[in-house]
């Protein structure tokens, strides 16, 4: 059993904005290319050019199709007099994809730490980053088994447990310009959907963002107290009810001959 710190000075972590993540995998691959030559063993890839390649990654994107329980904004064409057998092209127009990037959430009550038999899996008291001290790791896999998020991966070549380090070798790195002392996934995200900061500071950008946007814990029922937060998709900016607009338009619409009258007046106004 490995001990968790009773508290940490900082709570460093990520905010991931599901409203603007397009699922492009930039964060996934940039993480891999930074970290394979960085902290601990490389992130190996077996069968690299063969069937079923398998590599270790510290960050992955999962894509889910969801159908929110709402009333569609528009009825489908069949109700407008078109053939009743016709299907609206948009089908079940509420079905949508959600792209969900997932890496270690650096939990305050991290079960992956307490389950570790050697003390390799640890949470840093100074900043709350959960790390694996690879020299002590025996590759037993208990930590991955205990993580409810599936955020750890055994490296297929080195048999050592790999996980997100929050780019601990970037964020304090004096060899990098200050502006680049941020995790690789945050620096590279084209949609600006990833943010890094200290959640212990209520005035940090990430704390404010979470407050304003209703940032959420992933699976709070697991009592792991994840540090990373997800911003839920914003309510879609809605067009007012389509049917009302249609009715209003058909009332106010000009007939073709009316259009020329309108044009006359409009041109007159221009002088």
């Amino acid at each position: 059993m490995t001990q968790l710190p009773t508290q940490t000075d900082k709570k460093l972590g990520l905010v991931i904005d599901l409203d603007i993540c397009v699922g492009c995998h930039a964060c996934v691959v940039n993480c891999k290319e930074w970290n394979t030559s960085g902290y601990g063993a490389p992130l190996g890839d077996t069968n690299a050019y063969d069937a079923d390649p398998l590599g270790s990654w510290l960050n992955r994107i999962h894509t889910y199709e969801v159908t929110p329980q709402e009333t569609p904004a528009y009825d489908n064409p069949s109700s407008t007099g078109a053939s009743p057998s016709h299907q609206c092209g948009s089908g079940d127009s509420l079905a949508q994809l959600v792209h969900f990037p997932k890496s270690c959430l650096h939990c305050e009550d991290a079960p992956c730490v307490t389950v570790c038999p050697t003390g390799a899996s640890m949470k840093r008291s100074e900043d709350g980053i959960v790390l694996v001290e690879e020299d002590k790791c025996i590759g037993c896999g208990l930590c991955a088994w205990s993580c409810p998020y599936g955020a750890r991966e055994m490296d297929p070549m080195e048999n050592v447990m790999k996980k997100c380090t929050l780019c601990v070798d970037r964020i304090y790195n004096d060899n990098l310009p200050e502006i680049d002392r941020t995790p690789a996934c945050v620096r590279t995200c084209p949609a600006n959907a990833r943010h890094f900061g200290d959640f212990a500071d209520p005035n940090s950008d990430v704390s404010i963002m979470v407050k304003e946007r209703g940032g959420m814990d992933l699976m709070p029922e697991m009592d792991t107290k994840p540090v990373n937060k997800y911003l839920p998709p914003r309510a879609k900016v809605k067009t007012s009810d389509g049917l009302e607009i249609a009715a209003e338009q058909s009332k106010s619409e000009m007939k073709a001959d009316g259009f020329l009258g309108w044009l006359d007046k409009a041109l007159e106004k221009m002088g």
Partner: protein
Amino acid sequence: MTKSEYQLDTSPHVSDEIRKTTCYMCACRCGINVHLRKGDDGEMKIRYIEGNRDHPINKGVLCAKGSAGIMQHYSPARLKKPLKRVGERGEGKFEEIEWEEAFGIATEWLGDVRKKDPKKLAFFTGRDQSQSLTSWWTQQFGTPNYAAHGGFCSVNMAAGGIYTFGGAFWEFGSPDWDKTELFIIFGVAEDHDSNPIKMGLSKVKNRGKKIISVNPIRTGYNAIADEWVGVTPGTDGLFVLSLIHCMLKMGRVDLDYLIRYTNAPWLVIQDEGAEDHGLFARDADGKNLVMDRNSGKLIAYDTKGVKPDLKGEAILADGRKAVPVFELLAGKYLSDDYAPEKIAEEVGVPATQIRAIAKEIGDTAFEKEIVVDQPWTDMKGEKHDKMIGRPVSFHAMRGISAHSNGFQTCRAIHLLQILIGSIDCPGGFRFKPPYPRPISAQPKPHGAYKIGAPLPGPHLGFVSGPEDLLLDEDGVTPLRIDKAFSWDAPMSAHGLMHMVISNAHARDPYGIDVLFLYMANMSWNSSMNTDGVMKMLSDKDENGEYIIPKIIYSDAYSSEMVAYADLILPDTTYLERHDAISLLDRPISEPEAMCDAIRWPVLEPDRDVRCFQSALLELGGRLGLPNLTNEDGTPKYTEYADYIQQHERKPGVGPLAGWRGEDGESHGRGAPNESQIDEYIKNGGFSEKHVPAEAHYFKHANVAWQDFAVEMGLQDGHVENIFQLYLEPLRKFQLAAEGKGERQPPETHKERYKRCFDPLPDWYAPFEGTQISEEEYPLHALTQRPAAMYHSWGSQNAWLRQIHGSNPMYVPKDVCDSVGLQDGDWAYIKSYHGKIKVPVKVMGAVNQKTLWTWNAIGKRKGAWNLSDNANESNKGFLLNHLINELLPAKGDGLRWSNSDPITGQAAWFDLRVNIEKAPAGLESEPKIKPQKSVGVGGEKNVAYGKEWTK
């Protein structure tokens, strides 16, 4: 502060050197910082690639592809030495030869063609970013047969835009991300242009503005849109024209904008049966006439003080009638044929949704007007104290263009933009330098060749009517092998690369001797009818000779096309080469800055390979091509870098705009500078010249922009750019088909000119659907490019292939239910042309008549140095097998290409299919015989960076 026991070096050494160059993991050309670090063997290797924060395109961010550059640079499929074919075409059996021998063979083949009949060389390039060099080289050679891949990519987008308003989406324009209030995105897969769109969407979302996506598939960018319009493929044009119908009915048009900047007031002759019916009425000086609404007089459109009318009948000097374009336009689109209720079923979008979107566009454009306090002066000399914006912006890409009605659809979108006054205004669409550039400032196509002489001008260009077509003396036979600029596709501004092999094989219009290709995977994912093309490339005539006798190919990697070449010129990776991302070509500008960039060898090749452009220049010298050879017969340019710095397209203007002049102090115009590339390297690989603030908007009519463009060498004088709502060249082709004029299309073609060449944006059903039984093939099938994979290049990449290693066919849930399919089942997909067997995945967020899959994931066994068991070749598949490059035979003996009849754009997305359940299987079909790879090879397992970790 507490400290953990675990002592960790948090400031490890990162890299020994950072070299800044331009990415080439896709076509977006982002700036990258390549971190290099010494390896165990003392050699510099790539430690890390990140986005360049100063770069105008990506401003520091980098996508998945760019981030996987390490694996591309060290790919097992890299070619290592010139190769000569020893087996049969398609097998992939080669012997390695020296460059001297390779140049010798190529010089002999090409020299022979040039001496006897230059048109028998067809030189076509794929995703070539050096088209200003490759086209110029081919012009010096003297063959009429050159084009790049635009014809099968997005020529409809480019031509539709340039003909209409002198600009186009993507490279020549951009939404005003910072000011737009409503953004509508049509038919955009997740690639073009990768990072800027993601950055832009993020800006729009963070400002709380609305995004509407029009796309049959709700993935990627469409997944985060506020509203989704799940349009049926090929009907976007009808949807947009219905929006226009609503806009007119609501009076939501910007009349002032139309009068100032468009041909809406120009008079159109109404004299049915006359030679000039439907053409513009002009005065004795050839100036277009308008009717002054105060005096009723007909005067030249640019007369000072004229107040042109937009309606009413005018009587011309010869007593004939004419009406303004706008009256014709209003008459057409106000028709109930375009009412939302009439077209809802065809487009698969509820009428109420069409009406709501039209209202929203109108409300946003006219009630959320944006004012930028920036005085400017228009080209008529009128001073404006501010810039007024109609903040609705659009972007569109291949979903619009890859249909046989794509040119008209693209024009329809631009018409909508123009009607609401949102081209190059605050919050709307913005031009990027060197654009705007209307067709009056574009070249015409050239094809008249003479043995031993350069072609008199560039191959590709913009025609204004039948007089500009490239035809034989009979007025019918195409001059070009791809039949570009012929009656088959008169306005084919980018050529028809997808027809080259098919036509050469059919010897229609003639056979060729040498096919020379550069980075174009024509025997696989870049061709329709992949199987057929593979056969055409290896077919022999009655004498046992290949029908396409000689094939020279240059690529950096062991692609499917390599197997079909007779001679391979191995190219470098993108990190080993020079390149110019030139304003003469496809620039990287932003609306407020004119920009270009370079690539340079941040690493030296460790193989016997050469940057293709250097090899081409060497060949040009050996062939003694004009302008490529010194008087003493030696090559004028020793390598590409030398050409980039020394070549002048016209005095003072060359491939790169920055640091010109002997002292390097000039921008745009100036003498060549031998330190130019060094200056680019010092500046991070690019140059950026800011557009003056008074020229930020309304560039099409802005005198400050014109002055800047002239000063910078983008143009040599002011260029008038009047938006062409009514496109007269189309009407000229219709007149020819009506039997007018000297050059007329053959009888067989007349009907399509009447139907498809409406001078006002129009919609007609995509061709394939009208020539097959809709009952038999009720579904549409599309491909999309994923964000993390670019064409065929990605599969050799150990990282990217873990993300997209195989591709299911995504099938709408109702369709699955109707044929009894579930996730993981296999299905046969059939078109009139072919049949494939594929794995299935059920999906809800897709148009209910549309199947789709990821593009170019399927690989031929043995290609790209992947094992024969690779998922890409076992489970992955190509939709291309279902798509024919020809339309179904009509029994007229003609070969009708599966293309837009106006531009020749390959109509990939017209495909119609059906689906049935297949027995469970392990492999997709068709099964194609394996080829042999000839790349450097790779390790079974990769642990990149191990030498730098403990």
